[in-house]
């Protein structure tokens, strides 16, 4: 506190007249705390690296072996347990899982998001939905899938329900915050002309926020694609993730893991390209 006071009481002329360099950022409590935190993190990292149990693996050898593995994975990728078309089929299953969960999640979230937005709903309803949704988001997607696996059995059903659940939690927050960004005056103008709630929603709120809604949904779709790959392995939901799981843990086939990684990489890039195009299109229309 004392540091802050001495800084703020200095006049600008005092600062110029002194021989010392002029500080742009005064040293206050916040900067001190940030610097101390960073410093302790650096010290802890150094201490960690010095005291790791490396067994007999040397750092250099370890790095060399990993690079060799990566080289095998990506330069000698091959098909052994499935062919190209079968692999493609599995990728589409994974995409289907991501698309389905995003779509169901988006529809549910659109309606609940409207009620969760403070400018369109009452404070009580909004807070209720928001706190419930915060709880959903606090539990990771994988855990939700495993929770639903208790009743639905491990497999694609549990994966769809669990992933949808978490998507809803994520999208309600994203949508309702987009709705809240809307200029209060626009709502006021329509209300003043006698428009009712649904008319305001469809004629003003959704047209004004559609770019945000689409880009949030697409972002969630990309996340769900990644989660769907993991769910194939962890929850037996099928798709390319399951092949990855088999190739790595049962067949110990690095080359096939490489093939699958290429599949996922290519589709991830395609999704990104499509997302950018859609956003550009929405901005200009």
């Amino acid at each position, binding site marked *: 506190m004392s540091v802050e006071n001495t800084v703020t009481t200095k006049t600008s002329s005092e600062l110029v007249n002194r021989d010392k360099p002029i500080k742009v950022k005064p040293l206050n409590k916040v900067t001190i705390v940030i610097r101390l935190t960073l410093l302790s993190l650096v010290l802890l990292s150094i201490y960690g690296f010095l005291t790791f149990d490396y067994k007999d693996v040397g750092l250099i050898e370890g790095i060399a072996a990993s690079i060799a593995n990566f080289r095998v994975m990506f330069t000698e990728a091959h098909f052994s347990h499935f062919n190209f078309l079968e692999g493609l089929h599995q990728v589409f299953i994974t995409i289907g899982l991501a698309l389905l969960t995003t779509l169901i999640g988006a529809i549910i979230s659109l309606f609940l998001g409207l009620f969760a937005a403070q400018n369109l709903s009452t404070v009580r309803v909004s807070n209720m939905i928001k706190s419930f949704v915060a709880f959903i988001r606090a539990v990771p997607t994988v855990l939700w899938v495993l929770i639903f696996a208790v009743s639905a059995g491990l497999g694609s059903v549990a994966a769809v329900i669990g992933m949808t659940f978490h998507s809803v939690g994520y999208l309600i927050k994203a949508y309702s915050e987009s709705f809240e960004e809307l*200029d209060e*005056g*626009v709502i*006021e*103008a*329509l*209300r*003043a*002309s*006698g*428009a*009712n709630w*649904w*008319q305001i*929603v*469809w*004629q*003003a709120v959704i*047209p*004004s926020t*559609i770019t945000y809604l689409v880009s949030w949904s697409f972002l969630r779709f990309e996340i769900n694609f990644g989660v769907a790959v993991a769910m194939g392995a962890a929850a037996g939901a099928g798709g390319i993730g399951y092949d990855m799981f088999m190739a790595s843990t049962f067949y110990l086939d690095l080359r096939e893991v490489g093939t699958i990684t290429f599949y996922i990489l290519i589709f991830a890039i395609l999704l990104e390209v499509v997302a950018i195009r859609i956003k550009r299109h929405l901005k200009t229309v």
Partner: protein
Amino acid sequence: MTMLLELHDVSKQYGNNTIALSDVNFSVREGEFVSVIGPSGAGKSTLLRCINRMIDASNGEIVFDGVNALGLKRKELRNLRTKIGIIFQHYNLVDRLSVIENILHGRLGYKSAITGALGIYSREEKEQALKLLNILGLEDQVYKRSDQLSGGQKQRVGIARALIQNPKMLLCDEPIASLDPNASKVIMDYLKDISKSMGITVLINLHQVDVALKYSDRIIGVSKGSVVYDGSPRHITKEEIHHIYGSEAGDLIMDLGEDTDYAG
């Protein structure tokens, strides 16, 4: 001439001790052009919004077109709002929609929830929208997105949106406060013209005293939530304007007000 709007002892209180309006009394005749002037925070905007119940007055009686606005149920209130158009300082258009879509929003109050939500309008409504665009000199901007318009054009769209309601009265909340002097003059001329040719009553909040004096049939001065002047613009004296705005700011207002147009 009959009275279109009558306010009797209207008060508005926020919380326990913030008084926005206290015992406001005035009435407006049909077709009259009335300006409300007063310093920022005097309650001008609150006053305007009380009339169509965007803000609910705490006490008093507001009679619009023979109906007490404060006692209305939801559906009757909607009906009342269709008869009162509002024009805002920041236009409040839906930026991503076209000019004609924004204008047609003025019809929503007359439509069922579903046709309104889906944006289905009748041929007559669309014709009227085009007619208003012609009147307001926007015939080339019909399908332009409203965020591509200039401030003055946006305000004209705002006026068209209010007029398509077929209102008996226009409430204007600082309609020229964000516009340059040229656009301000255009907007004020349109408002005056609409008031005359269509017989629509206009109640307008203004910051520009000179503009208010030039265009209005009557001036209402508001200070600290009370009406302190109500009369013709011709008879208003320097002292009365000083009284409305408080003595410290008085000189500045009159000096500026006599020869130049100024914003804000």
